[in-house]
Protein backbone atom coordinates (compact mmCIF):
# COMPACT_ATOMS: atom_id res chain seq x y z
CA UNK A 1 0.00 0.00 0.00
CA UNK A 2 1.26 3.45 -0.75
CA UNK A 3 1.12 6.32 1.71
CA UNK A 4 -2.03 7.72 0.15
CA UNK A 5 -3.96 4.46 0.67
CA UNK A 6 -2.53 3.96 4.14
CA UNK A 7 -3.63 7.40 5.21
CA UNK A 8 -7.17 6.52 4.10
CA UNK A 9 -7.06 3.29 6.13
CA UNK A 10 -5.85 5.16 9.19
CA UNK A 11 -8.61 7.70 8.72
CA UNK A 12 -11.14 4.85 8.71
CA UNK A 13 -9.65 3.45 11.92
CA UNK A 14 -9.77 6.87 13.56
CA UNK A 15 -13.41 7.20 12.68
CA UNK A 16 -14.34 3.80 14.09
CA UNK A 17 -12.19 3.58 17.20
CA UNK A 18 -13.73 4.16 20.61
CA UNK A 19 -10.36 4.70 22.26
CA UNK A 20 -7.45 6.89 21.20
CA UNK A 21 -5.70 5.04 18.38
CA UNK A 22 -2.25 3.98 19.51
CA UNK A 23 0.28 3.95 16.63
CA UNK A 24 1.56 0.51 17.68
CA UNK A 25 -1.97 -0.88 17.50
CA UNK A 26 -2.62 0.76 14.14
CA UNK A 27 0.65 -0.73 12.89
CA UNK A 28 -0.47 -4.18 13.98
CA UNK A 29 -3.81 -3.74 12.18
CA UNK A 30 -2.37 -2.38 8.95
CA UNK A 31 0.78 -4.45 8.91
CA UNK A 32 3.34 -1.69 8.57
CA UNK A 33 5.77 -0.21 11.08
CA UNK A 34 4.58 1.91 13.99
CA UNK A 35 6.97 4.68 12.90
CA UNK A 36 5.30 4.85 9.50
CA UNK A 37 1.83 4.92 11.09
CA UNK A 38 2.92 7.69 13.40
CA UNK A 39 4.31 9.71 10.48
CA UNK A 40 1.12 9.25 8.46
CA UNK A 41 -1.06 10.17 11.44
CA UNK A 42 0.96 13.36 11.85
CA UNK A 43 0.44 14.01 8.12
CA UNK A 44 -3.29 13.59 8.58
CA UNK A 45 -3.21 16.01 11.49
CA UNK A 46 -1.40 18.52 9.28
CA UNK A 47 -3.88 17.95 6.46
CA UNK A 48 -6.84 18.74 8.74
CA UNK A 49 -5.08 21.86 9.98
CA UNK A 50 -4.35 23.08 6.45
CA UNK A 51 -7.81 22.65 5.08
CA UNK A 52 -9.33 24.19 8.22
CA UNK A 53 -11.45 21.15 8.82
CA UNK A 54 -14.18 21.03 11.48
CA UNK A 55 -12.14 18.50 13.40
CA UNK A 56 -8.56 18.03 14.40
CA UNK A 57 -6.42 15.05 15.25
CA UNK A 58 -5.50 15.26 18.90
CA UNK A 59 -2.62 13.44 20.53
CA UNK A 60 -3.83 12.22 23.85
CA UNK A 61 -2.85 9.55 26.36
CA UNK A 62 -0.35 8.01 23.94
CA UNK A 63 -2.76 7.78 21.01
CA UNK A 64 -4.62 9.83 18.43
CA UNK A 65 -8.28 10.71 18.33
CA UNK A 66 -10.54 12.93 16.25
CA UNK A 67 -12.01 15.84 18.17
CA UNK A 68 -13.99 18.83 17.00
CA UNK A 69 -12.09 22.10 16.87
CA UNK A 70 -12.70 24.30 19.90
CA UNK A 71 -14.07 27.25 17.94
CA UNK A 72 -17.11 25.16 16.99
CA UNK A 73 -17.97 24.27 20.58
CA UNK A 74 -20.79 26.86 20.76
CA UNK A 75 -22.56 25.14 17.86
CA UNK A 76 -22.18 21.72 19.40
CA UNK A 77 -23.52 23.02 22.67
CA UNK A 78 -26.58 24.21 20.78
CA UNK A 79 -26.90 20.83 19.12
CA UNK A 80 -27.16 19.26 22.54
CA UNK A 81 -28.42 20.58 25.79
CA UNK A 82 -25.32 20.67 27.83
CA UNK A 83 -25.75 20.11 31.52
CA UNK A 84 -22.77 22.01 32.80
CA UNK A 85 -20.40 19.47 34.32
CA UNK A 86 -19.57 20.31 37.91
CA UNK A 87 -16.19 22.01 37.49
CA UNK A 88 -13.38 20.78 39.66
CA UNK A 89 -13.16 22.80 42.87
CA UNK A 90 -10.12 24.88 43.71
CA UNK A 91 -9.19 22.32 46.37
CA UNK A 92 -9.45 19.49 43.84
CA UNK A 93 -7.34 21.33 41.28
CA UNK A 94 -4.64 22.23 43.81
CA UNK A 95 -4.46 18.64 45.00
CA UNK A 96 -4.40 17.38 41.43
CA UNK A 97 -1.59 19.82 40.62
CA UNK A 98 0.50 18.52 43.53
CA UNK A 99 -0.08 14.93 42.42
CA UNK A 100 0.56 15.67 38.75
CA UNK A 101 3.90 17.33 39.38
CA UNK A 102 5.09 15.30 42.36
CA UNK A 103 3.87 11.80 41.52
CA UNK A 104 4.11 9.29 43.00
CA UNK A 105 3.21 11.10 46.19
CA UNK A 106 1.63 10.20 49.54
CA UNK A 107 -1.30 11.90 51.23
CA UNK A 108 0.96 13.27 53.98
CA UNK A 109 3.23 14.89 51.38
CA UNK A 110 0.25 16.49 49.64
CA UNK A 111 -1.13 17.75 52.94
CA UNK A 112 2.24 19.22 53.89
CA UNK A 113 2.28 21.29 50.71
CA UNK A 114 -1.36 22.40 50.88
CA UNK A 115 -1.43 22.85 54.65
CA UNK A 116 -4.86 21.23 54.99
CA UNK A 117 -6.40 17.80 55.33
CA UNK A 118 -6.89 16.24 51.89
CA UNK A 119 -8.90 13.15 52.79
CA UNK A 120 -12.17 13.96 51.11
CA UNK A 121 -10.68 15.72 48.12
CA UNK A 122 -8.54 12.64 47.40
CA UNK A 123 -11.69 10.53 47.49
CA UNK A 124 -13.39 12.85 45.03
CA UNK A 125 -10.44 12.65 42.65
CA UNK A 126 -10.33 8.85 42.96
CA UNK A 127 -14.07 8.62 42.28
CA UNK A 128 -13.77 10.83 39.21
CA UNK A 129 -10.97 8.57 38.03
CA UNK A 130 -8.47 11.41 37.71
CA UNK A 131 -5.96 9.82 40.06
CA UNK A 132 -5.19 6.27 41.10
CA UNK A 133 -3.24 4.40 43.67
CA UNK A 134 0.08 3.52 42.11
CA UNK A 135 1.79 1.69 44.94
CA UNK A 136 3.05 1.94 48.48
CA UNK A 137 5.90 3.98 49.79
CA UNK A 138 8.66 2.04 51.54
CA UNK A 139 8.31 4.07 54.70
CA UNK A 140 6.76 3.50 58.13
CA UNK A 141 3.12 2.51 57.69
CA UNK A 142 3.69 1.84 53.97
CA UNK A 143 1.46 4.79 52.93
CA UNK A 144 -0.40 4.71 49.62
CA UNK A 145 1.25 6.49 46.69
CA UNK A 146 -0.97 8.42 44.30
CA UNK A 147 -0.45 9.26 40.64
CA UNK A 148 -2.50 10.64 37.79
CA UNK A 149 -4.54 8.25 35.63
CA UNK A 150 -5.04 7.77 31.91
CA UNK A 151 -8.37 9.56 32.30
CA UNK A 152 -6.49 12.54 33.72
CA UNK A 153 -4.58 12.80 30.43
CA UNK A 154 -7.80 12.62 28.42
CA UNK A 155 -9.55 15.13 30.66
CA UNK A 156 -6.82 17.72 30.27
CA UNK A 157 -5.90 16.84 26.68
CA UNK A 158 -2.37 15.69 27.48
CA UNK A 159 -0.32 13.06 25.70
CA UNK A 160 1.64 12.04 28.79
CA UNK A 161 2.43 13.47 32.25
CA UNK A 162 5.67 14.87 30.81
CA UNK A 163 3.47 16.98 28.56
CA UNK A 164 2.49 19.22 31.48
CA UNK A 165 3.81 22.77 31.24
CA UNK A 166 6.81 23.24 33.55
CA UNK A 167 5.93 24.00 37.15
CA UNK A 168 5.96 27.77 37.65
CA UNK A 169 8.76 28.60 40.07
CA UNK A 170 9.88 31.59 42.03
CA UNK A 171 11.35 33.29 38.95
CA UNK A 172 9.58 36.58 39.75
CA UNK A 173 10.71 36.70 43.35
CA UNK A 174 14.32 35.74 42.95
CA UNK A 175 16.11 33.06 44.97
CA UNK A 176 15.64 33.36 48.72
CA UNK A 177 19.33 33.05 49.48
CA UNK A 178 20.24 36.32 47.82
CA UNK A 179 18.20 38.53 50.07
CA UNK A 180 19.50 39.54 53.45
CA UNK A 181 17.11 38.63 56.21
CA UNK A 182 17.01 40.74 59.29
Amino acid at each position, binding site marked *: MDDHQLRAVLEALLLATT*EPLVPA*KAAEVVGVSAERCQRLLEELAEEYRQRESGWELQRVAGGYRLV*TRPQFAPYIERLYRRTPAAPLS*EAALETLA*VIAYRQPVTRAEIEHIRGVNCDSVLNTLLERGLI*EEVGRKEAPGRPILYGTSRHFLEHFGLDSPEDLPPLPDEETEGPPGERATK
Partner: protein
Amino acid sequence: MFEGPLDLLLHLIEEQRLDIYDIPIAHITSQYLAYLRAMERVDVELASEFLVMAATLMAIKARMLLPKPAEAVATADEEDPRRELVSRLLEYKKFKKAAAVLRALEERQRGKFPAQPRRPSDLRPDLSYLPADTLQVLWTAFSRLLKDADPVPQQIMRDLITVRQKMALVLRTLRRHPGRVQLDGLIGPAPSRTDIVVTFLAVLELARMGRLRVIQDFPFGPVWLERVGEWHGRSPAAGSSRSPAASHH
Protein backbone atom coordinates in the same frame (compact mmCIF):
# COMPACT_ATOMS: atom_id res chain seq x y z
CA MET B 1 -13.20 31.35 51.32
CA PHE B 2 -9.63 30.25 51.69
CA GLU B 3 -8.37 26.78 50.93
CA GLY B 4 -6.34 26.74 54.12
CA PRO B 5 -4.01 28.76 56.35
CA LEU B 6 -1.31 29.01 53.65
CA ASP B 7 -3.86 30.35 51.20
CA LEU B 8 -5.02 32.95 53.71
CA LEU B 9 -1.45 34.03 54.52
CA LEU B 10 -0.55 34.35 50.85
CA HIS B 11 -3.64 36.45 50.32
CA LEU B 12 -2.70 38.80 53.19
CA ILE B 13 0.86 39.12 51.89
CA GLU B 14 -0.12 39.72 48.28
CA GLU B 15 -2.98 42.05 49.06
CA GLN B 16 -0.62 44.40 50.87
CA ARG B 17 2.31 43.80 48.54
CA LEU B 18 4.48 42.64 51.41
CA ASP B 19 7.89 41.11 50.79
CA ILE B 20 7.44 37.39 51.16
CA TYR B 21 11.15 37.04 52.11
CA ASP B 22 10.80 39.58 54.88
CA ILE B 23 7.35 39.12 56.32
CA PRO B 24 6.48 41.62 59.06
CA ILE B 25 5.45 38.84 61.38
CA ALA B 26 3.76 40.86 64.14
CA HIS B 27 1.64 42.69 61.57
CA ILE B 28 0.64 39.53 59.70
CA THR B 29 -0.10 37.64 62.90
CA SER B 30 -2.56 40.25 64.14
CA GLN B 31 -4.31 40.34 60.75
CA TYR B 32 -4.45 36.58 60.62
CA LEU B 33 -5.99 36.41 64.10
CA ALA B 34 -8.45 39.17 63.21
CA TYR B 35 -9.60 37.08 60.27
CA LEU B 36 -10.09 34.01 62.46
CA ARG B 37 -12.12 36.07 64.93
CA ALA B 38 -14.28 37.48 62.12
CA MET B 39 -14.96 33.96 60.90
CA GLU B 40 -15.87 32.93 64.42
CA ARG B 41 -18.41 35.76 64.62
CA VAL B 42 -20.23 34.60 61.51
CA ASP B 43 -20.13 31.10 62.94
CA VAL B 44 -17.96 29.51 60.28
CA GLU B 45 -16.34 26.43 61.62
CA LEU B 46 -12.68 26.65 60.75
CA ALA B 47 -10.50 23.66 60.10
CA SER B 48 -8.07 22.92 62.93
CA GLU B 49 -5.18 23.69 60.57
CA PHE B 50 -6.05 27.39 60.87
CA LEU B 51 -5.50 27.23 64.61
CA VAL B 52 -2.25 25.32 64.26
CA MET B 53 -0.99 28.07 61.95
CA ALA B 54 -2.08 30.74 64.43
CA ALA B 55 0.06 29.03 67.08
CA THR B 56 2.99 28.79 64.65
CA LEU B 57 2.76 32.49 63.84
CA MET B 58 2.73 33.42 67.49
CA ALA B 59 5.70 31.16 68.19
CA ILE B 60 7.67 32.80 65.38
CA LYS B 61 6.71 36.24 66.65
CA ALA B 62 7.90 35.33 70.13
CA ARG B 63 11.22 34.01 68.86
CA MET B 64 11.81 37.19 66.90
CA LEU B 65 11.21 39.31 69.97
CA LEU B 66 13.75 37.41 72.04
CA PRO B 67 17.07 39.18 72.42
CA LYS B 68 19.69 37.49 70.30
CA PRO B 69 22.83 36.09 71.87
CA ALA B 70 25.78 38.33 71.01
CA GLU B 71 27.74 35.78 68.98
CA ALA B 72 24.69 34.80 66.90
CA VAL B 73 24.23 38.39 65.72
CA ALA B 74 27.70 38.31 64.28
CA THR B 75 27.21 35.18 62.17
CA ALA B 76 25.36 35.89 58.96
CA ASP B 77 23.80 32.47 58.66
CA GLU B 78 21.81 32.77 61.86
CA GLU B 79 18.57 30.89 61.40
CA ASP B 80 15.63 33.17 60.68
CA PRO B 81 12.58 31.85 62.59
CA ARG B 82 10.47 32.66 59.52
CA ARG B 83 12.51 30.54 57.14
CA GLU B 84 10.43 27.39 57.18
CA LEU B 85 7.19 29.31 56.85
CA VAL B 86 8.52 31.24 53.87
CA SER B 87 9.62 28.13 52.04
CA ARG B 88 6.22 26.51 52.63
CA LEU B 89 4.44 29.60 51.34
CA LEU B 90 6.59 29.66 48.21
CA GLU B 91 6.05 25.97 47.59
CA TYR B 92 2.30 26.35 48.04
CA LYS B 93 2.22 29.35 45.72
CA LYS B 94 3.83 27.27 42.95
CA PHE B 95 1.06 24.70 43.11
CA LYS B 96 -1.63 27.34 43.25
CA LYS B 97 -0.28 28.63 39.94
CA ALA B 98 -0.09 25.08 38.60
CA ALA B 99 -3.76 24.61 39.54
CA ALA B 100 -4.62 27.64 37.41
CA VAL B 101 -2.69 26.09 34.52
CA LEU B 102 -4.72 22.88 34.89
CA ARG B 103 -7.93 24.92 34.96
CA ALA B 104 -6.95 26.50 31.62
CA LEU B 105 -6.06 23.12 30.10
CA GLU B 106 -9.41 21.73 31.23
CA GLU B 107 -11.24 24.68 29.70
CA ARG B 108 -9.42 24.23 26.40
CA GLN B 109 -10.24 20.53 26.35
CA ARG B 110 -13.91 21.15 27.11
CA GLY B 111 -14.30 22.74 23.69
CA LYS B 112 -13.03 19.63 21.92
CA PHE B 113 -15.66 16.98 21.48
CA PRO B 114 -14.21 13.58 20.64
CA ALA B 115 -15.77 11.61 17.81
CA GLN B 116 -17.98 8.99 19.45
CA PRO B 117 -18.56 6.04 17.19
CA ARG B 118 -21.08 3.53 18.42
CA ARG B 119 -19.56 0.10 18.59
CA PRO B 120 -21.81 -2.46 16.92
CA SER B 121 -22.81 -5.10 19.44
CA ASP B 122 -21.22 -7.91 17.41
CA LEU B 123 -17.84 -6.26 17.69
CA ARG B 124 -15.84 -6.70 20.83
CA PRO B 125 -13.20 -4.16 21.81
CA ASP B 126 -9.73 -5.59 21.45
CA LEU B 127 -8.45 -5.35 24.99
CA SER B 128 -4.88 -6.01 23.97
CA TYR B 129 -4.33 -2.31 23.59
CA LEU B 130 -5.81 -1.52 26.94
CA PRO B 131 -3.32 -3.58 28.89
CA ALA B 132 -4.37 -4.71 32.37
CA ASP B 133 -7.39 -2.43 32.28
CA THR B 134 -10.00 -5.13 32.73
CA LEU B 135 -8.76 -6.08 36.15
CA GLN B 136 -8.29 -2.42 37.05
CA VAL B 137 -11.87 -1.71 35.92
CA LEU B 138 -13.32 -4.46 38.08
CA TRP B 139 -11.15 -3.47 40.99
CA THR B 140 -12.22 0.19 40.82
CA ALA B 141 -15.89 -0.73 40.53
CA PHE B 142 -15.76 -3.10 43.48
CA SER B 143 -13.75 -0.82 45.73
CA ARG B 144 -16.37 1.87 45.11
CA LEU B 145 -19.14 -0.54 46.09
CA LEU B 146 -17.22 -1.80 49.11
CA LYS B 147 -16.80 1.71 50.43
CA ASP B 148 -20.57 2.13 50.70
CA ALA B 149 -21.17 -1.25 52.28
CA ASP B 150 -21.63 -2.04 55.96
CA PRO B 151 -18.56 -2.03 58.11
CA VAL B 152 -17.00 -5.40 58.86
CA PRO B 153 -19.27 -7.30 61.25
CA GLN B 154 -17.86 -7.94 64.70
CA GLN B 155 -19.34 -11.38 64.85
CA ILE B 156 -18.28 -13.99 62.35
CA MET B 157 -21.34 -15.41 60.67
CA ARG B 158 -21.80 -18.45 58.56
CA ASP B 159 -21.85 -17.75 54.83
CA LEU B 160 -25.41 -17.10 53.80
CA ILE B 161 -24.54 -17.59 50.19
CA THR B 162 -21.61 -19.40 48.66
CA VAL B 163 -19.65 -18.34 45.62
CA ARG B 164 -21.05 -21.35 43.77
CA GLN B 165 -24.64 -20.32 44.54
CA LYS B 166 -23.86 -16.76 43.53
CA MET B 167 -22.39 -17.96 40.22
CA ALA B 168 -25.63 -19.76 39.44
CA LEU B 169 -27.57 -16.67 40.40
CA VAL B 170 -25.46 -14.44 38.15
CA LEU B 171 -25.94 -16.82 35.22
CA ARG B 172 -29.70 -16.93 35.84
CA THR B 173 -29.86 -13.14 35.87
CA LEU B 174 -27.88 -12.93 32.66
CA ARG B 175 -30.14 -15.50 31.00
CA ARG B 176 -33.25 -13.61 32.01
CA HIS B 177 -31.92 -10.34 30.57
CA PRO B 178 -30.93 -10.68 26.95
CA GLY B 179 -28.04 -8.34 26.20
CA ARG B 180 -26.06 -6.79 28.98
CA VAL B 181 -26.53 -6.52 32.69
CA GLN B 182 -24.89 -3.80 34.68
CA LEU B 183 -22.49 -5.05 37.32
CA ASP B 184 -23.98 -2.77 39.98
CA GLY B 185 -27.38 -4.31 39.24
CA LEU B 186 -26.24 -7.72 40.47
CA ILE B 187 -25.83 -6.34 43.94
CA GLY B 188 -28.87 -5.39 45.98
CA PRO B 189 -29.65 -1.88 47.19
CA ALA B 190 -28.04 -2.31 50.62
CA PRO B 191 -25.41 -5.00 50.18
CA SER B 192 -23.26 -6.37 52.93
CA ARG B 193 -19.52 -6.67 52.48
CA THR B 194 -19.95 -10.41 52.11
CA ASP B 195 -22.46 -9.89 49.31
CA ILE B 196 -20.06 -7.73 47.39
CA VAL B 197 -17.07 -9.98 47.90
CA VAL B 198 -19.01 -13.11 46.94
CA THR B 199 -20.36 -11.39 43.82
CA PHE B 200 -16.88 -10.22 42.89
CA LEU B 201 -15.48 -13.75 43.21
CA ALA B 202 -18.42 -15.23 41.29
CA VAL B 203 -18.00 -12.78 38.40
CA LEU B 204 -14.25 -13.37 38.24
CA GLU B 205 -14.72 -17.12 38.28
CA LEU B 206 -17.37 -17.01 35.54
CA ALA B 207 -15.17 -14.76 33.43
CA ARG B 208 -12.27 -17.15 33.91
CA MET B 209 -14.47 -20.05 32.82
CA GLY B 210 -15.48 -18.09 29.73
CA ARG B 211 -19.16 -17.97 30.69
CA LEU B 212 -19.42 -14.21 30.64
CA ARG B 213 -17.69 -11.20 29.27
CA VAL B 214 -16.83 -7.98 31.12
CA ILE B 215 -17.37 -4.84 29.07
CA GLN B 216 -16.71 -1.20 29.66
CA ASP B 217 -17.43 1.14 26.76
CA PHE B 218 -15.27 3.98 27.96
CA PRO B 219 -12.83 4.40 30.81
CA PHE B 220 -14.57 4.72 34.19
CA GLY B 221 -17.97 4.15 32.62
CA PRO B 222 -20.39 1.55 33.93
CA VAL B 223 -19.22 -2.05 33.88
CA TRP B 224 -21.46 -4.44 31.96
CA LEU B 225 -21.64 -8.19 31.97
CA GLU B 226 -22.67 -10.16 28.92
CA ARG B 227 -23.38 -13.82 28.63
CA VAL B 228 -21.07 -15.68 26.26
CA GLY B 229 -22.85 -17.19 23.31
CA GLU B 230 -23.57 -20.92 23.71
CA TRP B 231 -27.21 -20.41 24.68
CA HIS B 232 -27.96 -18.23 21.70
CA GLY B 233 -29.58 -21.14 19.88
CA ARG B 234 -28.81 -21.58 16.23
CA SER B 235 -25.64 -19.57 15.85
CA PRO B 236 -22.99 -21.64 17.57
CA ALA B 237 -20.31 -20.30 15.23
CA ALA B 238 -20.88 -16.73 16.30
CA GLY B 239 -20.80 -17.75 19.94
CA SER B 240 -17.78 -19.97 19.96
CA SER B 241 -15.57 -17.67 17.92
CA ARG B 242 -15.58 -15.13 20.70
CA SER B 243 -13.28 -15.44 23.59
CA PRO B 244 -14.20 -13.92 26.91
CA ALA B 245 -12.81 -10.47 27.47
CA ALA B 246 -12.00 -10.92 31.08
CA SER B 247 -9.78 -13.94 30.55
CA HIS B 248 -7.24 -11.56 29.15
CA HIS B 249 -4.37 -10.93 31.53
